[in-house]
């Protein structure tokens, strides 16, 4: 199954990654090659296997719900591209839905 450049562009929008025409076409070609490997998996007998089990994993450990201060907030904020007091600053987000 070939993947069109249109599909690549839609996926890129989902990933919030701008791509140009050249990248879309080279990525479509890449998909052609890699899907061959992916589609080979469909030929296997996977009846009855639960995809959500990880064998041999010890399970999620629990801990007390305690407050532990992390003293690096100022340093973390200092490296933000744009901040305002204790907040990260972003451009206006109202009206965004119309563009997607």
């Amino acid at each position, binding site marked *: 199954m070939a*993947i069109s450049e249109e*599909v*690549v562009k839609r*996926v*890129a929008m*989902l*990933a*919030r*990654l*701008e*791509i140009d025409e050249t*990248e879309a076409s080279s*990525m479509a070609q*890449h*998909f052609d*090659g*890699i899907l061959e*490997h*992916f*589609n*080979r*998996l*469909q030929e*296997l007998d*996977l009846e009855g*296997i*639960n*995809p*959500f*089990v*990880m*064998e*041999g*994993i*010890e399970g*999620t*450990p629990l*801990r007390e719900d305690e407050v532990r201060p992390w003293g*690096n907030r100022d*340093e*973390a904020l200092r*490296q*933000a*591209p*744009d901040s305002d007091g204790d907040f*990260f600053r*972003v*451009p*206006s*987000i109202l009206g*965004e839905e119309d*563009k*997607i």
Partner: protein
Amino acid sequence: MKLYELSASEIVRGIRNKDFSAVEVLRSSLDRAGSLEKDLNAMTAFSSEEAMVQAASVDEAIARNEEPGMLAGVPVLVKDNMCTKGINTSCASNILKDWKPPYNATVVDLIENEGASIIGKANMDEFAMGSSCEHSAFGPAHNPWDTDRVTGGSSGGSAAGVAAGYVPLSLGSDTGGSIRLPAGFCGTFGLKPTYGMVSRYGLIAFASSLDQIGPFARTMEDIALSLQVLSAIDPKDSTCSRRQRPVFNSALQRESLKGRKVGLVKEFSEYDLSPDIQGAVNKTLRTLEDAGAEIVEVSLPVTMTSGLGAYYILAPAEASSNLARYDGVKYGHSEPSDDLLNLYLKTRKAGFGDEVKRRILTGTYVLSSGYYDAYYLTAQKVRQVITREFNAAFAQVDSIIMPDSPAPAFRIGELIDDPIQMYMIDVFTLPVNLAGLPGLSVNTGFSSQGLPLGVQLVGPKWGEMQLLSQGSILEKEFGSAKIADGGEKR
């Protein structure tokens, strides 16, 4: 003998013995790195001043007769995807190029608390995605045995730094072969521990269910020593196992493998291995057999045919999710924009390199509505089949011998335009990550062209002790890793 030629264990003994100081060792290491770095490009940043402070404090501890730590005065190179407080941590990506983390990765704290001096950060494929260390925003690292060739990836700088004698010990991470492949290409030992053996706190995530940190060294004694330090239980990583760790260096004393069984994978005969690598595998089997092991054929049919497909669904799927955090808002590169959507789109376009973009797009595709069942869930099931195949094999044998790669180090540029051919290089290493197993790369010698020839010993989960025993028996036969002249073409 020059100080930079010493192993980590020799350095610790010498410093405790007052044969030399930690500052002298560090100077020798920094001089060595400084003289070769323009040819090898193994590093993304130096932290010489911080290292000097650390070495001086080791010397003061010695002067006061205090315990200086298990890695006292050992110069170490840390892959640039592990957070070092106040020191650049870029993941070899433009999106994090000037970022200085506000905290240390657990492994960084662990080695510094034991007296190690971090001389800087090691070059790598961007976000650890690659098999050659060519996908770096800092340019490719060069193999110290032949600078026209790749180091292997993604932890290429960590391998090259140890092979060229910058440091006796370095840290890498392995998601699909990223420690074992460069160890093989550069002729060092490299261990990818069992998933859950080493804390991932502060390791910048690529594929969280596959990533694992491990050491590069020139001796098996150093692999055991560093693993002891690195494998501490860490409450900050919920996937870091709470199981008690063994005393690793006790595995190195074993002389005989009598009663042990070593597996040879039947399906290898279908692969086109280079004669050099085939020779390395045969030599390894013969050595283990001479030590008393019995060679047994094991079969991993689904692993060998479908491991690559499953890996290149699961790893990009996890990567696309993990890399969603680079949004131009909280830290790292940001492209000024009037609205939020364009801030995301343009920041990520400018910040990520080609291979990272390929993986993000692949991962987003396999997780997108309509394809999730066919790709992601199928790959998760295949992952379980692969784990079961390894479990069945390890019911019969104590370890499995595999090549690191089908051929020795290739030339820089040779595969850069053919990503899928590049992916195929990892066909023998990535199944080990899918099953969460430990893998040790051992150098067996050199090809007629002077290129290192590595093989990989794979163990069952928590089978590190057996790998260390077998690795040290191979070290007695093939020798410890040699230091390359670097820059010298042969």
